[in-house]
């Protein structure tokens, strides 16, 4: 008989750690000496996906750079909840300038490091979807096209959460926000608007573009580490559920992100020099309802008379992601 080779343990490589794995196989987050880039005591809401995603990403970047890392932050939740005077949660050199200029400030920091002969010090810029896809888009595109040596990480929670949940260009269709209320003949955000920034980043043909979610830590960490292997402009777009803005339970933040991936609503993939090189396959494909139902921002689609045609359009978007990014194909070994 043939024996299955032992390549994973009880839980495979899906958990954060696992005592049975060798230290190299464990995630950064499982390490006792992880940098905890965002220290305890920050003021993020309970179950904040962004707080989690940012720590995941920055801790991984810290490990990849041997802690030779500087972070630049756009205005937004992440900035506000980590650095209200007189306390900061950041444990690495960190700077906040404005809402729309994080990419450019990071370019400046990277230039300073280069000119100071300290190229080992790497620079990460980070912002929410508003600071990235809207107000910061010009600076971001400039940083991309100049191929400045910056990793830009967008923590996408699909609306302006810091100001009270207003629509951004990353808000999905049908989602209720404070500026796309669930009223009128077409409640929620309209179809046919918005942009998917990872695809735009790819169009710049920068060395590395990836998407990730907080639900798959190892994938996220691998991408941050991979990004750090390149010089030049890199972009990682991380889906980070927002319990407040999405109307989900605080304990569901990771589950919702997982559902976004498993339904195809949010494609998880990576690209190099403008060409997709991998996709994180969906393990158990689920219908979009599974993702939509737990979220109050989509509550108007359900109830006594579910809006099946709207759900079908959202399903079609997910299906398009699945085929466009090859989300049902097995990972190439």
């Amino acid at each position, binding site marked *: 008989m043939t024996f299955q080779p032992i390549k994973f343990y*009880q839980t495979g490589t899906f958990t954060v750690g696992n005592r049975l794995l060798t230290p190299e196989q464990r995630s950064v987050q499982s390490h006792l000496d992880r940098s905890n880039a965002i220290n305890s*005591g920050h003021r993020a809401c309970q179950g904040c996906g962004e*707080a989690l995603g940012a720590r995941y990403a920055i801790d991984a970047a810290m490990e990849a750079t041997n802690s030779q890392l500087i972070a630049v932050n756009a205005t937004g939740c992440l900035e506000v909840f980590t650095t209200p005077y007189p306390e900061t949660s950041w444990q690495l050199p960190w700077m906040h300038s404005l809402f729309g200029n994080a990419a450019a400030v990071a370019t400046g920091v990277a230039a300073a490091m280069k000119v100071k002969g300290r190229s080992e010090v790497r620079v990460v810029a980070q912002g929410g979807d508003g600071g990235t896809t809207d107000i910061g888009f010009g600076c971001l595109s400039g940083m991309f096209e100049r191929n400045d040596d910056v990793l830009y990480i967008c923590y996408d929670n699909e609306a302006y959460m810091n100001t009270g949940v207003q629509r951004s260009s990353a808000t999905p269709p049908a989602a209720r926000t404070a500026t796309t209320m669930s009223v009128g003949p077409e409640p929620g955000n309209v179809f046919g608007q918005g942009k998917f920034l990872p695809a735009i980043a790819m169009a710049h043909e920068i060395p590395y573009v990836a998407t990730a979610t907080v639900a798959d830590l190892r994938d996220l960490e691998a991408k941050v580490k991979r990004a750090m292997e390149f010089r030049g402009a890199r972009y990682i777009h991380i889906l980070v559920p927002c319990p407040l803005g999405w109307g989900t339970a605080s304990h569901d933040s*990771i589950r919702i992100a997982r559902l976004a991936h498993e339904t195809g609503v949010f494609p998880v993939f990576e690209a190099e020099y403008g060409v997709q090189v991998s996709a994180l396959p969906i393990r158990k494909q689920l219908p979009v309802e599974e993702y939509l139902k737990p979220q109050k921002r989509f509550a108007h689609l359900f109830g006594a008379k579910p809006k099946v045609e709207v759900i079908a359009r959202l399903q079609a978007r997910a299906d398009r992601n699945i085929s466009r990014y090859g989300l049902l194909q097995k990972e190439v070994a």
Partner: protein
Amino acid sequence: MDKPFAITLDPGSSLANLTGSWRTRKPVYLDRLPPCNNACPAGENIQGWLFHAEAGNYEQAWRTLTENNPLPAIMGRVCYHPCETACNRGQLDDAVGINSVERFLGDEAIKCGWQFDKPATSSGKKVLVVGAGPSGLSAAYHLARMGHKVEIQEAGPMAGGMMRFGIPKYRLPREVLDAEVQRILDLGVTLRLNTKVANIEQSMKEGGFDAAFLAVGAHIGKRTYIPAGDATKILDAVSVLRSMEGEDKPMLGRRVVVYGGGNTAIDVARSVKRMGAEPIIVYRRTRDKAPAHDFEIEEALQEGVMIKWLSTIKQAGEGEITVEKMQLDEKGFPQPTGEFETLAADSVVLALGQDVDLSLLEGVSGLEIKDGTVQVGPNMMTGHDGIFAGGDMVPSERTVTVGVGHGKKAARHIDAWLRGTVYESAPKHEIATFDKLNLWYYSDAPKTVRPMLDIIRRQSSFDEVQGGLDESNALFEARRCLSCGNCFECDNCYGVCPDNAVIKLGPGRRFEFNYDYCKGCGICVSECPCGAIKMVAEDI
């Protein structure tokens, strides 16, 4: 550096902000009872020993296992593994092959010559164990480890009881049995064979025993009236199986009818098949109503055993028997149909269950006998102070594993009774049900199938039918354990806390919450794969 006021801050200074005050509910770690442990009649800490086996630490796994059950190599062969029936993984893909890992550990122990630790102290008390079957051996083992002096008095010529005289070799090779019995004796347990206790009170008095544990089993085959001619050979299953152990194999002829639908009937049929006979099992009900385990029926059918369902023996004549066809009524009971047929039969083996030989209890005060079994209290003590009983002779399911469990339970109560105390079992944790798990974190890993002896050899020899796992697949199998309800240090809580409010204590020491910062979001609970955290209301 001379930092500008207010806009430039020292790193990590947010520790001054204790966000734990936001919390209304808090997570707490807990150990839930895994369904396998809950289902084990021997009270094994299955998940506990799988935990060590997963790491390849087989000796530690074996030692953890034998804390509760001294017979893993036997268990791994004869136990009907209710643990696997209960296993949560069965709802995911296939139950973890607990039984096969147990056997691997048992075999590994025999191969490596692992021995039990000798008791550190002696209590000075003497306990008589009557019967060297699974229950008696188990009790002797536990009592010896508790520091008591134990003597087993066994009526038969060899230790093992039903494990030797009721279970065929092809299911339990005798060298395995002998090895595990010997290991118990090596603890300092005295075994006196061919010593039938005729009067328990007298035996205790003569031997100066402070307590006794009776585990004589149920060895008397039940009989039923079958009109038969002189020439027809009618035997009982227990006698047939027992005689398999001796030099003189029973003379049953070529065509053997086995009457009954339990595991014993299957054992007899499969045994005689191996002796070259053609067994036919006659059973009055249907396959799904038969008490035998279905996998045993399946294996018997594969080996060429014939089975006549819905039939009763009406008469046995020379070289043939008459059977009546039955049909099930609405309540599932078999009713005669008046249709008859004859079957060729050189002998009939009755496998209709066994009775207990209660002669040793005659005259003992306070005992209660009901339906042919000795009644015991929750502490396994009979109505007579100091005399405990277990195994097949008390009312319960009659399996090796139940017997082993009785032995352990009785040993604990005997120990307490000898010390003048009462044994209090630890409160049972809530059960880690399937819904408590977060299955996303477990990778797909179908059960490893144990190799089976090829069909030709199974029909002609008493070689063991079921093979064992080798190390690599035993390890794989152990690692399929979901660790339901008990932390296995996957680091998920440590990783997923948005507030770094989980403190990792290091290998084997698990985690604790830092309630100074825990905001009570509950992500750790949702993302714990095995359901070892729960939310409770905060005292405000």
